[in-house]
């Protein structure tokens, strides 16, 4: 089978959200000598792109998205050590620390965000709901995050997003991370007012935003 065939098969196994098939096809590709990075970039991620689009158009829903993400994660557990063995770079597009701010228990939007980030190739640390501002900052330092992403659904918890941005400023860390905010109660104006680097109305658009922010980050570091 030519290269294209195996990549098509990898992609399809992800679209089918079939964990066993994903793992079997990854094994097959590795046995045939395909580079682990190529398995991800040319096989699995294009499959996840399709999954993301299907989710956006309501052809599939959260369970299917999760199933695809779980299959992808299992494959990554096999592929990542291979990449490290060969001294390769981590395959991720960027590192994101994510959570719902202090006092806010709304998790659904944030969970969708995590899945879409993960399935778009980002490494995500999901701190959960009701997240203390220092947890955001400490985790971002610990994992050398590119982006801190915060969700807030209540008018009275919005302030938690500002708290984190202010605290980053007070600690002299504001330029180290890109900060994006979102969730039901937020607006673009709010994001601007508190000095966030970006805002998105949906998880799907948040992924585009992340790419833009990581790109800008790389640009500013250069």
């Amino acid at each position, binding site marked *: 089978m030519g290269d294209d065939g195996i990549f098509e098969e990898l992609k399809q196994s992800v679209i089918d959200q079939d964990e066993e098939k994903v793992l079997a096809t990854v094994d097959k590709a590795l046995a045939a000598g395909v580079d682990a990075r190529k398995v991800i970039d040319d096989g699995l991620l294009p499959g996840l792109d399709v999954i993301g689009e299907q989710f956006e158009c309501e052809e599939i829903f959260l369970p299917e998205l999760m199933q695809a993400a779980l299959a992808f994660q299992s494959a990554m557990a096999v592929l990542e050590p291979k990449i490290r063995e060969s001294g390769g770079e981590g395959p991720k597009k960027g590192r994101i620390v994510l959570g719902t701010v202090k006092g806010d228990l709304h998790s*659904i939007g944030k969970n*969708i965000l995590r899945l879409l980030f993960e399935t778009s190739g980002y490494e995500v640390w999901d701190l959960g709901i009701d997240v203390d501002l220092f947890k955001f900052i400490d985790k971002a330092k610990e994992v050398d995050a590119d982006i801190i992403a915060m969700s807030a659904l209540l008018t009275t918890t919005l302030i938690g997003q500002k708290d984190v941005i202010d605290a980053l400023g007070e600690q002299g860390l504001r330029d180290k991370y890109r900060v994006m905010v979102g969730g039901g109660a937020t607006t673009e104006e709010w994001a601007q007012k508190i000095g966030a680097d970006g805002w998105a109305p949906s998880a799907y658009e948040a992924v585009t935003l992340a790419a833009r922010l990581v790109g800008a980050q790389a640009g500013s570091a250069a």
Partner: protein
Amino acid sequence: MIDLIEVFDRAETGPLTSETDYYMKRYVPKLAEVIARYGIKWDKQTIVNTDDELTDNVFSAAVDLLAEAGAYCPETNRVMEFTRDEILTACAQAPTSATFGEGRERKAMRGRRPDTTDDRPWVHVGGGIYTTDEQVFVDTVEKMASFSIVDSVSVPSILHIRGKDARVRSPQEVLATIKTVRLAREGILRSGRVGLPIINGISAASQPASMFAATYPDFGLRPSDGFLIDFLSEMVVGYEALQKVAFYNTIGANIGSTSTPLFGGYAGGAEGVAVTATCYMIMGNLIMRGTYHYNAPLHSKLHLSSTKPLIWAIALSNAAVGRNMGYPMVNLPYLGGGSGTKQYHYEMACYMLAVVTSGGNVFSGHPAMAVQPDSLVPDDHRFHAEIGLAAARLTRAEAEPICQKLFPLFGDKLKEPDKGLTFQEVYDPRTKRIVNADYQRVMDEVREELAGMGLEVPVS
């Protein structure tokens, strides 16, 4: 019915499972299985289902779902399991009426059956929408309570203390919650109907401590009001909810079990929402010990409940419970259009026609997905209550063609809904009379259009 302590114990004794495993190995596959088992399918066209074999199948599927997947308690990481017998006994013993209010205003909300055309459903108006000003808050409540057709109100929330919004869980939130309750009772008192129940207790509280504090009798709430207790995402029963159950059950208060199954979330599409919404009403009685249910399915991206598959699913869940359990329920409509817009009135009429003929009570709609401050405009709610009462005289089969005429008037606008008005833009602050002529005109026109479609809506 198994007793309450036993229910609490189930959260400690059930199988240990992570939340992801609960969803991916229990809820999601079981939901798909019961949908297939009973052949539940939406034809992508119908808004108001009239096929009662399907209706009863939805109920059976909901019973199976709870019996086979259980509910999940995140604090103990355990599945709360119930046998089919326990579930069916609880359904058979569910309350079929809930008594609210005091004095002249003391009345019963009843569980209704679909196609009942000779009763008067319960009329509930309002919403827990954020307000920016104490005067607007009191005026909004007073005005809503003053409409004679209204049996109960949901009051907005007002969260600032000395000009600053109280942070969630701060001591200021406790004070803001108490203030909300006191101002709400004051607004009701000014309407001349002091015994009128508030059934969205307690809108400003984000935590049990604030809720319990504001329940102190001197502040104006009574067990004959209604206290909402929510499920945390799909099938998840948190300890905070169970703490509220423990308290409100002990003071003999009306508990409104509340659920917001999400279209596009773990529940999937129309069929999954219909079954899950029905399952919530079963759990609302068994686990939350509710006397009534707040049924609030909504779309995970649009944040509203007026899409075609959602109205179908919501109405169907009402019919399933109405025919098989009789638990009193209201449906909380999140609508896209802003207050006072035609879009908002059309959405409400379509939703109301579907749910009221299917066995629901009347509940006016939350405009603009309920995130626009000061957007409770009382006369909208009066109009919507009138629409609900008019709908109650129709059967589902009579409602369906009207819904089909209404849907195209707003369906395409749901992604970018029309912006609406605020209380301040409609009323004279002193006389509380409508001073916005356009507002009145739009409402009059819609009333006429509805009559043209076959729904005569008398002015109350």
